[in-house]
């Protein structure tokens, strides 16, 4: 099986190249079929690989070639797939495949179709390579590559100025994060002399060798990269704007896969983060803040895609806070469930937009349930999942995050973020069902004479249904909490099983010694054997009571949000306008997205622009350009002179050879031979 690993990314790459070369001339609309088929093959192979890893419980690796051989700096392009990679492969290829199928319908008739179906598999290739990479440098290359694909696809409608601006914004904001990631890699190489992940000489085995400050710096720099890609505060502003791209792109790249690359990076570099409490604290705080902030913004937005985008931000915040509290498996679990239900939400939103003739404002919708039943029911399922209503997918993973934070080693931050997460869960349910009720129920706020809402074609609804199934069911791979199929599969990546057995004794003592508040039990366990720097880390077993009580708490929060939304937007018991007036200040902050765009504009963009103008007008034109032009002009003049040497006369040429010979012989014999000594 290991021999076939390279085919998984290669096939989409080939499809992309073929479509790019022949899409416009030869293939035309068949480009879509070709790309989709390629991703389908990739998906099939991913499933086979995942099953293989599940059976053997061993990682598989494949060496492709040496990329940079340069003294000590020896980088190879290897593929590596363990259980974590397998999960990512499945998510990327499954959502990728469904989005490809959906796009066949969504993009039909678009003149740039072939471009779309060249970039999309290129993205799938880059993303697959990113998760298959076994060293930081290769990962960085594809980290940039997915960023490039994202840029290309956001600006897909390149005639729209806003799309171009959004693409540039995404690219530039990501640069900040990527700079951190790049610096982090340099630090890693500087510290460990290698950029490889695994093995005896790999970075992850040798984290203990580095000083705690160094490790903290590395972890924070890597996390800066993750913040850019996963749109965490304060680098979050690009993601909502990225919705300028076609909706399938939003579903695949800006909800399900690329934005989770940051989560994947932190999870992959688990041992580095474990070695730095400071880094963990920052990760958890940023995640919690992002989760809360994005949820509040989502409450007041009117663009259907933006609401979903802020919801994505918020869910990414959940994943990040889970990482920061050491709930690794919960983070990745949420990544998986989120990929499905958020992908479905986006595709559903796309279907609504499609059916409403490119209308995105929810104030101009309403009562669409009867026009597009399939879209409605699938969207409803996804909304329930996103809101965390039992037993849909989102419930299991979100509950695990909240519980994991509460009982984690990192206190008091763990319990604080846990409470923030519960509040955000309430808000999540509120904004999700605001969307559902406003869009699908109530009065029809559009002019039926002008707009004729219709259900989308089969090729679009089919992926909706296909995604709805995992949205409903996928949570059960994580049930019962902490002991599901998923946990057994992924566990070996995050927890050193042998160390677990060795330390089991101390753990039991801690449990028995103080069975009451989970927080204290955690600190006790920490004191007993909690040396985390070697990468061996033990999960806390939550007691049944904790599982049940947190299940109840998060359900209450979610249902509370749902009921409130029902009261406001369905029953009309509370007027949203009045609420907005009442809490004018809060409403404004939320509606204006906490004024981050304005803040960045004033603090960074304007000063930069004016200094750039100064540099351009004065330094560049008057100094540098003058110098460069002078040198260039001088060179051109010298060149004109020198070409006169080429007289066209054979005799002169022969003379040059003869003179050259005489000079060489003369100088050399005088200087070096015994002739003149």
């Amino acid at each position, binding site marked *: 099986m290991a021999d076939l690993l390279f085919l998984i990314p290669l096939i989409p790459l080939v499809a992309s190249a073929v479509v790019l070369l022949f899409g416009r001339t030869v293939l035309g609309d068949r480009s879509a079929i070709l790309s989709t088929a390629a991703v389908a093959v990739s998906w099939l192979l991913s499933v086979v690989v995942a099953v293989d890893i599940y059976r053997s419980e061993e990682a598989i690796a494949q060496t492709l*070639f*040496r*990329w*940079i*051989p*340069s003294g000590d700096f020896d980088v190879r392009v290897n593929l590596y797939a363990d259980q974590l990679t397998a999960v990512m492969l499945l998510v990327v290829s499954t959502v990728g495949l469904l989005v490809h199928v959906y796009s066949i319908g969504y993009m039909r008739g678009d003149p740039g179709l072939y471009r779309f179906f060249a970039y999309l598999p290129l993205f799938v290739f880059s993303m697959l390579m990113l998760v298959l990479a076994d060293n930081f440098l290769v990962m960085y290359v594809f980290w940039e590559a997915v960023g490039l694909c994202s840029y290309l696809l956001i600006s897909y409608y390149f005639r729209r100025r806003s799309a171009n601006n959004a693409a540039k914004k995404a690219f530039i904001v990501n640069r900040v994060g990527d700079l951190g990631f790049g610096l982090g890699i340099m630090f890693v190489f500087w510290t460990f002399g290698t950029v490889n992940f695994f093995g005896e000489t790999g970075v992850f085995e040798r984290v203990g060798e580095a000083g705690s400050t160094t490790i903290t710096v590395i972890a924070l720099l890597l996390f800066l990269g993750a913040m850019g890609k996963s749109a965490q505060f304060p680098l979050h502003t690009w993601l909502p704007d990225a919705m300028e791209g076609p909706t399938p792109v939003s579903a695949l790249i800006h909800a399900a896969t690329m934005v989770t690359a940051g989560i994947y990076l932190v999870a992959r570099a688990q041992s580095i983060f474990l070695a730095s409490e400071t880094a963990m604290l920052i990760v958890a705080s940023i995640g919690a803040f992002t989760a809360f902030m994005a949820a509040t913004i989502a409450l007041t937005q009117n663009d259907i895609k933006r609401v979903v985008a802020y919801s994505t931000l918020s869910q990414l915040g959940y994943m990040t806070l889970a990482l920061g509290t050491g709930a690794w498996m919960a983070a990745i679990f949420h990544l998986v469930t989120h990929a499905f239900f958020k992908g479905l939400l986006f595709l559903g939103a796309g279907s609504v937009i499609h059916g409403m003739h490119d209308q995105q404002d929810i104030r101009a919708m309403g009562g669409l349930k009867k026009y597009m039943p399939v879209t409605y029911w699938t969207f409803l399922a996804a909304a329930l999942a996103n809101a965390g209503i039992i037993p849909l997918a989102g419930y299991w993973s979100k509950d695990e995050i909240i519980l994991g934070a509460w009982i984690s080693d990192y206190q008091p931050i763990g319990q604080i973020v846990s409470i923030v997460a519960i509040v955000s869960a309430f808000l999540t349910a509120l904004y999700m069902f605001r969307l559902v009720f406003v869009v699908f129920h109530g009065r029809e706020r559009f002019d039926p004479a002008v707009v004729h809402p219709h259900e989308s074609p089969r090729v679009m609804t089919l992926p909706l249904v296909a995604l709805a199934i995992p949205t409903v069911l996928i949570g059960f791979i994580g049930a019962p909490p902490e002991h599901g199929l998923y946990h057994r599969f992924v566990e070996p990546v995050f927890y050193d099983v042998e160390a677990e057995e060795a330390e089991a004794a101390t753990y039991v003592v801690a449990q028995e010694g103080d069975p009451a508040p989970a927080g204290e039990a955690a600190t006790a366990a920490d004191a007993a054997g909690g040396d985390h720097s070697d990468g061996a880390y033990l999960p806390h077993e939550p007691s049944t009571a904790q599982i049940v009580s947190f299940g109840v708490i998060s359900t209450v929060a979610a249902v509370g949000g749902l009921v409130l939304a029902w009261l406001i937007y369905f029953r009309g018991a509370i007027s949203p306008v009045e609420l907005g007036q009442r809490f004018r200040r809060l409403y404004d902050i939320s509606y204006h997205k906490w004024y981050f765009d304005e803040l960045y504009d004033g603090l960074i963009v304007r000063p930069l622009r004016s200094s750039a103008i100064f540099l351009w007008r004065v330094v560049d034109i008057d100094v540098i350009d003058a110098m460069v032009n002078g040198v*260039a002009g001088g*060179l*051109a003049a*010298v*060149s*004109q002179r*020198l*070409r006169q040497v*080429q007289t*066209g006369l*054979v005799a*002169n*040429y*022969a003379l*040059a*050879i003869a*003179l*050259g*010979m005489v000079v*060489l*012989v003369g100088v*050399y*014999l005088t200087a*070096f*031979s*015994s*002739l003149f*000594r």
Partner: protein
Amino acid sequence: MGLDLDLTAPDLTLAWPQLIVFVMTVVLLFADAFVPKAQHFATLTGISLVGYIGAAFALVTQSGQNAATFDGAFRADGLTVFLSLIILVAAVATVVISASYLQNGEQQLGSDGRLRIANSVPAGEFYVLIGFSVFGAMLVAAAGNLIVLYIGIELSALATYVLTAFAKRRLTSVEGAMKYFLLGLFASAILLYGMTWIYGVTGSMDLDRIAAHLAGTDAGDGFTDPALLLGLLLLVVGIGFKMAAVPFHFWTPDAYDGAPTPVTAFMSVVPKAAAFAAAIRLFVQALEPLSDQWTTLWAVLALVTMVFGNVVAIAQRNVKRMLAYSSIAHTGYIMVGLAAYTSGGTIDDPSISSLLFYILAYTFMNIGAFAVITYLQQRGVGMMLEDFNGLASTRPLIAVAMTLFMASLMGVPPLLGFYAKYYVIVAAIDADLLWLAVTIVVASAVSAFFYLRIVAVMYFNQPDGRPLALPTRLLSGGIGVLAVATLLLGLFSSPIIDLADQWSGALTVLGRTAGQ
């Protein structure tokens, strides 16, 4: 006189790649006369391609060999294989890109605005001459003594002189050939004189025995024998001419400009590869003990060559001439590999492998650039900068390919040319030639001036609206393959450089053991 004649039969299996090319050439000679006109062109093209590709396969089976036959006159070692492969790649590329030229002849835009054929070119003779030139160049790569080296160089050069004059109705073609021929003979005489002195001093024609003799007489304080140094210097002049090193380069612009474009593509690579093969055989293998003397020489020549080539190229508006000067500049870069040779070179010495890799890279990108010019010549116009106006809008793919070739020649990462320069620079730094490494970088920056001008003209100017023929399938395929190679081979540079390393290492190690 005790003549020591060794009458054991030569091991022909070692030479069969070369023999395949030779037999193929003879077959072409007969086929030219006997194949009926209808299938004439296709048959001859087919025979050529099959011959070269067959020879390449035969070469591949020899990788890892390190043997000699014909009493040491013919060597089958890593260097032979690597350089011969480069030469065969160039040969295949030349055949592919010259097909349309041979079919249509050379066209000119008449006063009535119509294309007319000004020079028809006999395909058979063309292929035969290419075959002999390739055979000669392969002999140089495989040479084990001075005689074979000289015969190979002359065989390769004589065929190229004739090819240069192939558009014999066009004065510039004949004029270029005349200059190339006269100066070539002149330089050959100098080269021969140098060989004679080396022979006289060391008493042997055999390269390994020359090295052994010199190592035996090395008193440790350097070589001061004027006769030996004279021989060395004359060899530098002779080989420098074949490489087109400044100030022995004057034939290059005129001959490149005059020759039919496919021939220019061919002669910018194959004779140059042969010249560097001869340089490695002569200097690294035979005169290895004198390396302190010749590395300085090559370093100075390399500096002058790359600066001069790049600077003069700026003033050219004729693209073929510009590429001629550019090829002079690239000779300079390649020579850095020789200059960076550290005496008693080991496997770790990156100099010769960087040189070999550079020639490989140069082969792809340079033939590619000339292939695009060959295509444009179907418009029946000259090869001026203006002829590239707006190519990006009329033939976007060809414009992309040309952009790739130009960027690669310039050394833009991650293209092939970048890696080639990178390895040469690393070799120069390893040999403490920092000034040379800096010059490479500066010279490359200067070269952006004229390479990018072509790109700019293609993308920013308006097309002139003159008719533009479709490229033949063979030509566009050839351009495509060369462009892809230019784009991707760089990423796989490390296996290639490993091979070059292994082979040049084997060569120098062999030279040292023979020398002890």
